[in-house]
């Protein structure tokens, strides 16, 4: 499934030489956007410093932390009164504005399927649904 083109980071890591400089600190070579590329693309060049420093806008958001989700929230707009509880309670803040400008939606790249939004929704407008039901249109 995942191509492991790990030559570059392995070569970089195999030296015992002292660090060269912090000029290119993270981010520089990180893949742009959210394209689910190979694992090498996700990790290569993330840590250009001695430590695990990374630029959140460049590096961290490339990691799709929601990709081990087992359930996903489905929003039933007919029941929703746009109170925003889901937005407030979401522990990883992945509830976003819906395209209609009134309701809410979920950024599936980061939703871990915890179900807090569904639990807190006063209108029962969020239904947790098995991820397996969406296997065919899985983005990754």
């Amino acid at each position: 499934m995942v191509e492991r083109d790990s030559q570059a980071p392995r070569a970089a890591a195999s030296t015992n030489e002292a660090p060269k400089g912090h000029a290119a600190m993270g981010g520089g070579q990180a893949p742009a956007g959210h394209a689910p590329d190979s694992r090498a693309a996700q990790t290569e060049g993330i840590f250009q410093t001695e430590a695990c420093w990374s630029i959140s806008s460049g590096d961290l958001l490339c990691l799709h932390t929601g990709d081990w989700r087992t359930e996903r929230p489905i929003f039933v707009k007919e029941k929703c009164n746009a109170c925003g509880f889901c937005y407030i309670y979401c522990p990883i803040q992945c509830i976003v504005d819906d395209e209609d400008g009134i309701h809410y939606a979920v950024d599936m790249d980061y939703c871990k399927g915890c179900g807090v939004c569904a639990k807190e929704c006063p209108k029962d407008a969020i239904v947790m649904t098995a991820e397996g039901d969406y296997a065919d249109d899985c983005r990754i």
Partner: protein
Amino acid sequence: MTVASERPGVAPAPSVAAEKQTKVITGNGAAAWAAMLCRPDVVAAYPITPQSEVIEQLAKFHADGVLDCEYVTVEGENSAQNVVCAATMAGGRAYTATSSYGLVYMYDAMFNTAGYRAPVVMINVNREPPGIHAVCSGQQDMISVRDTGWVQLICENCQEILDTTIMAFRLAEDYDIQLPVMVNYDGYYLSFLAESVEIPAISEVDDYLEVLKSQPPRPQLLPGSNLGCGSHGIGMGYVELRKKHMAAMERVKTKLEEIDGGFEAAFGRSYGGQIEEYRTEDADIVLVTSGSAVGTAREVIDAKRDEGIKVGLVKLRLYRPWPRERLSAALKGKKAIGVLDRSICFGWDCGPFYMETRALTPEIGIVPMLSFIDGLANMDITKEHIAGMIDDIQAASEGRPYQQVTWLP
């Protein structure tokens, strides 16, 4: 909080530290004085016997206006470690001190600090860890955090505590190293031992640490910037960081020798870097030990030399990384080797330093190696004990049967 690299010039010297002086202070006092002289930006620690005096003294320095730092009174050691870790991530210089229960209570946070390559300096006053409630000296606490990725140093006396703490800041914040450093010394035997200590003027310490300011700046976590540290290292990212960490750990060995040399040039005292060899050059047999036991061992070795026994001593100063090259060179060609441990190594039925010395057999050659376990829980490592050990090592070197592991008394 003033970040070290942003200080406008050099801060004024507090009057108590303006001049070089000689004072009678305890080991804990020496640790506190050294920390103060290095001008940490943040101190966070929780009191625990036998370390409490360190942070009491630092709190007093702070209250008296001698130490210009953020003094964070935390509710436990886990918080203390997280505070100092974060402070170094923000670019500051940070210091903490603990012992035994406190050390193991910050165990997870120690991995963070090391994994983030946060150059924290921490005092660990050696004391037996939980299980058997011993408010007593013993090195088992430092052994138990062996694989957290920290550099570990061990001190023999109060002067060495002061000097090693200053060197620890120099080492931790070195651009090639960027690792947390733990300075260990025996609780009770050194923590409360008062002896004459030469305390340098703060300006001399400023000068000694000045070189750190000319390094490339470390990244800083600052409010408003979108920089993160330690958030993710999945797969190869993890491997890359581990490899770098390991490489930095290896560099510590030569760097410590350099720093020790620089310290001698600045202050006139040196400690041999990773290890100190005492009368090993023409020795047939060698005793390896560390900490406060070294002083006793040195005396006994002088006495045994007078009796005609060619015995030498290796004092272990660096525990992590293990000084294997220097140790191998010091021990190669000896007829028998004894290792005195103040802790035990479960699963190997011997002392931890012994186990690691034994791992050098391919370099040293196969000779009798004897493990001595002494000084647990404040049991004194006496001259008689060490004389007995040397007799055992000598007998083994002459081909007589010997016991591999000996518990004393």
